[in-house]
C-alpha cells in the first residue's frame, strides 16, 4: 500500500485542524490532507475511500474546494454495502449540486436504489434525490417516487412525499400525477407522513390550479377534522412540546388551510370554527403556542372575510405587540405589516406602540417597525408621525440613520400638506443627518425650494441659520450654498419675512464667508466645492462690494489639481475680471425648476436615451425663440445632452464655459462646423484659442471624466433629459431642464461623434502615405476604430502589400483584413484596412503604435517601418 495514501485517521486530521493557531496553518494542514486524498484517489484505493470522503466533507465545510472527490461519491454509491452507500449519498448531497454534469451519472444508481429490497437503502436514495434532483432526473425517476408514496413503511412514504415536492417544482407538468397519491397521504395517522403529505399538498396547490381546486373540494373537511384531532389530542410524549402535541403539524395544517381558504368563501366558512378554537384555546405562555397563534393569525387574515375572526386575530397581535419577549414583538410587527391591507384601521390603533418599537434597541425590531410606520402614514397623521421620527433621528444609532432618513424623506415628500412644512422638515433632516441623505433627496429639496417663490427669503435665512449649527452635514451645505448663491440678496435684505421668523442681520460679507468656509473646508468634496464656486460667481454680481474678494477666492483655485475646479476658477475669474457687462445677465436667478419633470425622472418612467431627436426639436425653438435666455440656461447646464448643435445662439459656447458634460463633444462638433453668430467674443473669453483646439481640449476632458465617472454635476439628476420632449409647460420651463440636466446624458451620442478626432497622416515616406481616420464605438470609450488608408506615391504598382502593427501591453490591437493587397501607382486608388485598438489605460495614456509595411515593387521586396505617436489625445 502506498505509505502516503493511508494518511491520517479522520480524528487525527480534525485534531490537527483544531490545533491550528492561524488560518495559514490550517491551510497547510488542509493542503497536505488534500494531496494525500488525491493520491489515494489516483491509486483507486478501496479501503480508505470511505474515510477519505468523510475527510473531504469536513474540508468542504471549512470552505475549501473538494471537487476532485466528486467521483469518489459516485463510486461509493455504486458499491453494495450500506455504510459505503450512506457516506456516498451524504457526500453527493454536500459536495455536488444539481448543476454538475457528474450528477447525470448518478441517475442510474439512484434508480436501482429506489427499487432496492432494503428499505434503508431506498430511504437514502429518496433523501438524496429530494435534496439534489435536477429536472432531467425528476422526469426519469418520477414514476419510482410516485410508487414509493404507497410504500408499506411510513418512513419511506414521508421521504417520498418530500421528494415529490422537489420533482413537481422542477417539472410542474408532473404535478397532476401526484394529486391523488398526495390526497391519500392526508388521511394517514403517522405524523411524519401527515406533515410531509400536507406540505406536498401545499406545494401542489402552488404549482397547479387543478390541484388547488381538487384539494379544496375533496380535502378541506378532512383537513379541518385532522387539525381538530391534533388540537384536541391527548398527551403524546413523542410529539409533545410544552403541552402541545406536534406544533409543527399544527403549523403545516394551518398553512395548507390558508391556501385552500384564500379566495374561496365556502372553504373559508368550513374552517372558521377550528380557527376560532385554535385562536382562543392555544396556550400563549410558551414559544410553541405562540408559533401556532402566529400562524393562525396569518391564516385568518388571508382567508375570506369573517369579521369575528379578524377581531380575534387583531387582538392576538395586540397582545403580541405588548409582549415583553422581543421575538414575539418582532413577529407581531411582521404580521401587522400583512394585516394592514386587510384592516388598516385596526393597525392604526397600535400606532403609538409601533412608534415605540422604532426606537427599540434591537435593530431587527427597529427595522420591522420602521417599515410598518412607513405604510401607516397618511395625510391625517403625517405631521405627528414625522415629528416623532425626526425627534428620534437625533438620538438614533449611526447605522440606523441611513434607513431612517430615507424613510422620513420619502414620507415627507409623499404626504407634505404644504411647502413650508416640507421645507422645514427637510431642513431638519438635512441638519440632523445630511450625510445620510441620498443625492436625489437634496436635489428634490432644491426643486421644491425653487418652486416656492414666496418662501425663497424664508428658506435661505433658515438655511443660513442651520448652516451655523450643522456645517458638517454635506448635503445641508450644498443646499445652503445653492440657495445663498441664488437668493443671497433676500438673505441680506430680509426680504419676504414671514410672521414666524425672527429677523436676522446678515451682511454681504457674512454670506460670502459662509461660502468661503464651504469651499475651503477639508471635508467638502468636489461637488460641494464646484457648487460653491458657482455660488460665488452669482454673489459677485449680487454683491458688487464683495466682487474683489470673491475674485480673490476664485483665483486661488486657478492651480487646483482638480481639473474641474481649475477650469471653473479660470473661467469665472475671466467673467468677473473682464466681462462685467455680461456678468449680471449670466448669473441671473435660475428659472423655476420644473417639478413634474423631476418627478417623472425620479419615477424612472422615461429612459434618458429616448429619442434625442425629439428632444432636439423641442430645444431648437427654445434656443432660437429665446436667445437671451439660452445663454443663461446653458451657462449652468452641467450636462444637457439634448442641446442640439444647431441651436447655436452663442449659448452653446457659454454652455461649454461651465459645462462638464460628456455630451459636450456633440455640441463642440457643431461649433466647429456650424457658422457662429457673435460667439467669437465668448470664445476669446475662454482663452483657449481656435475652435479646433477647444474641441480637442474638450475631448481630453471627456476622456478623463469618462474614466473616473465622477464628473461634477452638482445638480445632477434634477430633471429628466428626455422628459423635456414631452414638456407641456411654457417655453420658460424648458430651459430648466437644460439647467439641471444631469449626467444621465446618453453617452452614445458623445461617442458616436467620431468627427471630434481629426484624421492624421500617420506615416509618410517618399513612396507611401498612410492616413488614419478615427471613430469610437458607441458605449465603449476605450476602443478606437481606426481606418487606415494607404496611398501609393510612386509610379510603380505595389503588390503583396502587407501592413503590420504592434502596440505596447496596455493596448490591444485587432486588425481586420485589408481591402486588397495591390496598390495602384500614383495615388490612383488605395487600400483600406480597419484596426481596432482598445486602450486599457484610456484617459491616462495615449495611443502609440509601431508599424511595418511590406510590399513588392518591381518584384523587389520593400520594407518600411515607423512609429506613430501623433495620435490625437484622448483616444
Amino acid at each position, binding site marked *: 500500500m502506498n505509505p502516503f495514501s493511508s494518511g491520517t485517521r479522520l480524528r487525527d486530521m480534525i485534531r490537527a485542524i483544531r490545533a491550528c493557531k492561524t488560518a495559514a496553518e490550517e491551510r497547510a494542514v488542509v493542503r497536505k490532507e488534500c494531496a494525500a486524498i488525491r493520491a489515494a484517489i489516483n491509486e483507486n484505493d478501496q479501503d480508505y475511500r470511505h474515510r477519505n470522503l468523510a475527510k473531504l466533507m469536513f474540508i468542504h*465545510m471549512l470552505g475549501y474546494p473538494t471537487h476532485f472527490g466528486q467521483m469518489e461519491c459516485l463510486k461509493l454509491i455504486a458499491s453494495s454495502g450500506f455504510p459505503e452507500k450512506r457516506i456516498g449519498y451524504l457526500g453527493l448531497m454536500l459536495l455536488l449540486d444539481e448543476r454538475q454534469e457528474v450528477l447525470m451519472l448518478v441517475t442510474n444508481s439512484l434508480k436501482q436504489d429506489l427499487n432496492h429490497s432494503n428499505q434503508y437503502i431506498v430511504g437514502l436514495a429518496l433523501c438524496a434525490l429530494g435534496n439534489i434532483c435536477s429536472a432531467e432526473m425528476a422526469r426519469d425517476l418520477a414514476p419510482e417516487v410516485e410508487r414509493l408514496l404507497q410504500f408499506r413503511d411510513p418512513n419511506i412514504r414521508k421521504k417520498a412525499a418530500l421528494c415529490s415536492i422537489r420533482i413537481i417544482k422542477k417539472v410542474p407538468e408532473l404535478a397532476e400525477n401526484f394529486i391523488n397519491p398526495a390526497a391519500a397521504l392526508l388521511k394517514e395517522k403517522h405524523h411524519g407522513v401527515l406533515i410531509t403529505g400536507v406540505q406536498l399538498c401545499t406545494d401542489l396547490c402552488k404549482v397547479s390550479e387543478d390541484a388547488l381546486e381538487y384539494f379544496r373540494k375533496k380535502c378541506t373537511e378532512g383537513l379541518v377534522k385532522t387539525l381538530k384531532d391534533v388540537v384536541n389530542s391527548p398527551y403524546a410524549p413523542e410529539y409533545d412540546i410544552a403541552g402541545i402535541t406536534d406544533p409543527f403539524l399544527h403549523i403545516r395544517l394551518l398553512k395548507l388551510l390558508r391556501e385552500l381558504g384564500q379566495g374561496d368563501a365556502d372553504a373559508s366558512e368550513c374552517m372558521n370554527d377550528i380557527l376560532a378554537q385554535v385562536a382562543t384555546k392555544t396556550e400563549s405562555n410558551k414559544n410553541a403556542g405562540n408559533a401556532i397563534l402566529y400562524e393562525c393569525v396569518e391564516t385568518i387574515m388571508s382567508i375570506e372575510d369573517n369579521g369575528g375572526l379578524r377581531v380575534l386575530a387583531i387582538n392576538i397581535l395586540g397582545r403580541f405587540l405588548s409582549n415583553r419577549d422581543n421575538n414575539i414583538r418582532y413577529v407581531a410587527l411582521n404580521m401587522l405589516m400583512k394585516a394592514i391591507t386587510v384592516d388598516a384601521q385596526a393597525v392604526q390603533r397600535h400606532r403609538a406602540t409601533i412608534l415605540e418599537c422604532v426606537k427599540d434597541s434591537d435593530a431587527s425590531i427597529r427595522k420591522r417597525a420602521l417599515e410598518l410606520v412607513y405604510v401607516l402614514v397618511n395625510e391625517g397623521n403625517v405631521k405627528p408621525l414625522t415629528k416623532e421620527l425626526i425627534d428620534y433621528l437625533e438620538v438614533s444609532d449611526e447605522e440606523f440613520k441611513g434607513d431612517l432618513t430615507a424613510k422620513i424623506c420619502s414620507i415627507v415628500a409623499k404626504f407634505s400638506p404644504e411647502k413650508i412644512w416640507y421645507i422645514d422638515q427637510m431642513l431638519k433632516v438635512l441638519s440632523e443627518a445630511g450625510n445620510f441623505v441620498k443625492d436625489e433627496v437634496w436635489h428634490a429639496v432644491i426643486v421644491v425650494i425653487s418652486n416656492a417663490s414666496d418662501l425663497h427669503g424664508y428658506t435661505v435665512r433658515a438655511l443660513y441659520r442651520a448652516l451655523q449649527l450643522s456645517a458638517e452635514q454635506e448635503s445641508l451645505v450644498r443646499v445652503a450654498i445653492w440657495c445663498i448663491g441664488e437668493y443671497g440678496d433676500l438673505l441680506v435684505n430680509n426680504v419676504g419675512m414671514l410672521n414666524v421668523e425672527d429677523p436676522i442681520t446678515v451682511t454681504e460679507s457674512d454670506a460670502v464667508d459662509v461660502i468661503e468656509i464651504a469651499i475651503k473646508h477639508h471635508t467638502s468634496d468636489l461637488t460641494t466645492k464646484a457648487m460653491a464656486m458657482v455660488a460665488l460667481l452669482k454673489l459677485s454680481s449680487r454683491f458688487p462690494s464683495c466682487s474683489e474678494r470673491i475674485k480673490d477666492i476664485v483665483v486661488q483655485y486657478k492651480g487646483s489639481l482638480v481639473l474641474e475646479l481649475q477650469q471653473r476658477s479660470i473661467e469665472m475669474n475671466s467673467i468677473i475680471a473682464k466681462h462685467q457687462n455680461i456678468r449680471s445677465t449670466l448669473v441671473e436667478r435660475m428659472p423655476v425648476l420644473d417639478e413634474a419633470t423631476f418627478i417623472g425622472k425620479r419615477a424612472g418612467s422615461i429612459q434618458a436615451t429616448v429619442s434625442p431627436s425629439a428632444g432636439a426639436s423641442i430645444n431648437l425653438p427654445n434656443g432660437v425663440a429665446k436667445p437671451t435666455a439660452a445663454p443663461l440656461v446653458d451657462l449652468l447646464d452641467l450636462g444637457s445632452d439634448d442641446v442640439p448643435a444647431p441651436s447655436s445662439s452663442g449659448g452653446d459656447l457659454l454652455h461649454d464655459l461651465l459645462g462638464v458634460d460628456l455630451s459636450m463633444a456633440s455640441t463642440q462638433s457643431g461649433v466647429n462646423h456650424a457658422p457662429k453668430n457673435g460667439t467669437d467674443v465668448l470664445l476669446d473669453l475662454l482663452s483657449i484659442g481656435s475652435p479646433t483646439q477647444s474641441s480637442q481640449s474638450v475631448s481630453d476632458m471627456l476622456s478623463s471624466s469618462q474614466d473616473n465617472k465622477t464628473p461634477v454635476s452638482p445638480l445632477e439628476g434634477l430633471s429628466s433629459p428626455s422628459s423635456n420632449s414631452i414638456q407641456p409647460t411654457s417655453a420658460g420651463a424648458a430651459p430648466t431642464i437644460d439647467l439641471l440636466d444631469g449626467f444621465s446624458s446618453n453617452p452614445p451620442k458623445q461617442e458616436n461623434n467620431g468627427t471630434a478626432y481629426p484624421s492624421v497622416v500617420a506615416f509618410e515616406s517618399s513612396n507611401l502615405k498612410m492616413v488614419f481616420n478615427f471613430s469610437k464605438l458607441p458605449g465603449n470609450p476605450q476602443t478606437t476604430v481606426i481606418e487606415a488608408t494607404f496611398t501609393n506615391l510612386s509610379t510603380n504598382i505595389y503588390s503583396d502589400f502587407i501592413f503590420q502593427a504592434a502596440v505596447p501591453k496596455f493596448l490591444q490591437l485587432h486588425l481586420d483584413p485589408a481591402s486588397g493587397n495591390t496598390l495602384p501607382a500614383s495615388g490612383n486608388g488605395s487600400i483600406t484596412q480597419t484596426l481596432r485598438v482598445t486602450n486599457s489605460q484610456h484617459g491616462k495614456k495615449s495611443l502609440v503604435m509601431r508599424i511595418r509595411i511590406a510590399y513588392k515593387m518591381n518584384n523587389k521586396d520593400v520594407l518600411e517601418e515607423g512609429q506613430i505617436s501623433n495620435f490625437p489625445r484622448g483616444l
Partner: protein
Amino acid sequence: MGIRFILMVNKQGQTRLAQYYEYLTLEERRALEAEIVRKCLARTEQQCSFVEHRNYKIVYRRYASLFFLVGVDNDENELAILEFIHLLVETMDRHFGNVCELDIMFHLEKAHFMLEEMVMNGCIVETSKSSILAPIQLMDKMS
C-alpha cells in the same frame, strides 16, 4: 421550501456544520457565513432571535458555546423555526448525551445523518425524536 440552510457555528465564529438546501458556490457560502455569523454573534441575549440578511431571515439560537443558525424564506414562521432548532438540539442531546461542539466536529457525518432524518429539501420530515434516531441507532448497531 422553507429552510434554505442550517449552520452550526462556535462562538469564535468557526463553522462546525453547514447544510445548504439551495445551490451556492463555495465563495458565496464563505462570504454568506462570514457575514451572518458576524451579525448574529454581535447581538445580545435580550435582542430577538431574528436577523434579516439579504433576502434571508436568519433564525438563531445559542446553546452554550454553539450557535445554531437557520436561514429561511421570508414567509416562514420564525417562531416555529426557533422551536425546530430546539428539537434538533434535543435530538442530538438524546444521541450524544448533552451534545457539544466536539461531538459535532468528530461525528460530523452522524450529525448530518440526523439532520437528514429531520429536514429534506428544506422541509421538516419528522418531529418525533425516536423516529429520527431509530435508523441511526440501527446503523450504529450494525457497524
